[in-house]
């Protein structure tokens, strides 16, 4: 495999390629938006009984579930056949700050083992952290009516002010987490 494939792809390849994915879905008569699948999955599991919000004909959404299964397979292909390693060339400032917080092997894989290892995923506090993070993602995207693909990419591409508002929220939340909440969560990590 040539190195331009196995090396990490630069932003100017990735960005336009993501736009291409959106164009393909528009051309197929659909809208790009991954978080909608979470709602569909709730419907399939019977959430309709508890809220009308989940009353929808999920058969019209199968295309998006199939897209998502494709994304999982795409991830597998990417790591198994198109990459030599998962090293992330981070800013040295980012690396040293995370190291000062107690993170080890920063940037040696896509996600820190301090947060995502099997040990974390099998400990009580770890499961609580992973679930809580997921609840924020699921609740927030549905409240805002879309996630990064639906608002930041699709909505902005269509120049929708509501999507711009949502993206402002995404960044507000992200900044609050990284600068205010995350540092004070450190004692919590040490207990996992």
């Amino acid at each position, binding site marked *: 495999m040539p190195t331009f494939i196995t090396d*990490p*792809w630069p*932003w100017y390849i*990735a*960005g*336009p*390629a*993501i*736009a*291409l994915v959106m*164009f393909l879905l528009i051309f*197929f*008569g659909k809208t790009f938006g991954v*978080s909608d699948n979470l709602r569909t999955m*709730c419907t399939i*599991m019977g959430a309709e009984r508890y809220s009308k*919000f989940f009353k929808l004909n999920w*058969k019209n959404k199968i*295309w998006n579930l*199939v*897209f998502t299964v494709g*994304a999982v*397979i*795409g*991830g597998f*292909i*990417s*790591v198994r056949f198109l990459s030599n390693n998962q090293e992330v060339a*981070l800013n040295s400032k*980012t690396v040293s700050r995370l190291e000062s917080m107690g993170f080890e092997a920063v940037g040696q894989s*896509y*996600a820190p083992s301090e*947060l*995502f290892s099997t040990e974390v*995923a099998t400990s009580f506090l770890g*499961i609580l952290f*992973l679930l809580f993070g997921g*609840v924020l*993602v*699921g609740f*927030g*995207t549905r409240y*805002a009516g879309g*996630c990064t*693909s639906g608002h*930041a*990419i699709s909505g*902005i591409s*269509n120049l929708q002010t*509501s*999507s711009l508002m949502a993206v*402002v929220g*995404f960044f*507000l*939340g*992200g900044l*609050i*987490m990284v*600068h205010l909440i*995350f540092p004070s969560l450190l004692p919590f990590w040490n207990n996992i």
Partner: protein
Amino acid sequence: MKIYKLLKFFLTGILFGVILGKAEVISWYRIYEMFSFESFHMYGVIGSACTVGIVGVLIMKAFNVHGLNGKPISFKPKKFSVPRYLIGGTIFGLGWALTGACPGPLFILVGYGYFSIIIVIIGALLGTFLYGILRKRLPH
């Protein structure tokens, strides 16, 4: 929908997974670095996707491009509201920065072999369910 009609969505999904995986967009570190303003990478990815997207959508509208189904391509703008997008967006942003993943990357990371992410996905399903139940009591 017939199986062969679904194939194109499957292939597009694979493309999506490969792009986000290879560009490190699914990396927790990249998200942390982005919110620390210490790398241009993520801004470049999102910014160039939007720039190409805006130009492409304008062209599609200007030339009245038709989709595969023969109908003109359509866009359904969302109803404008401040609290809904700002509050909902902020809650999502908190989760995005904490888990380092938005919904697309959540699934791609499972393909990468990060199985603990399945617990985050279960959490995201719970969060979606919670929104469905509380929806009428929330400002929109």
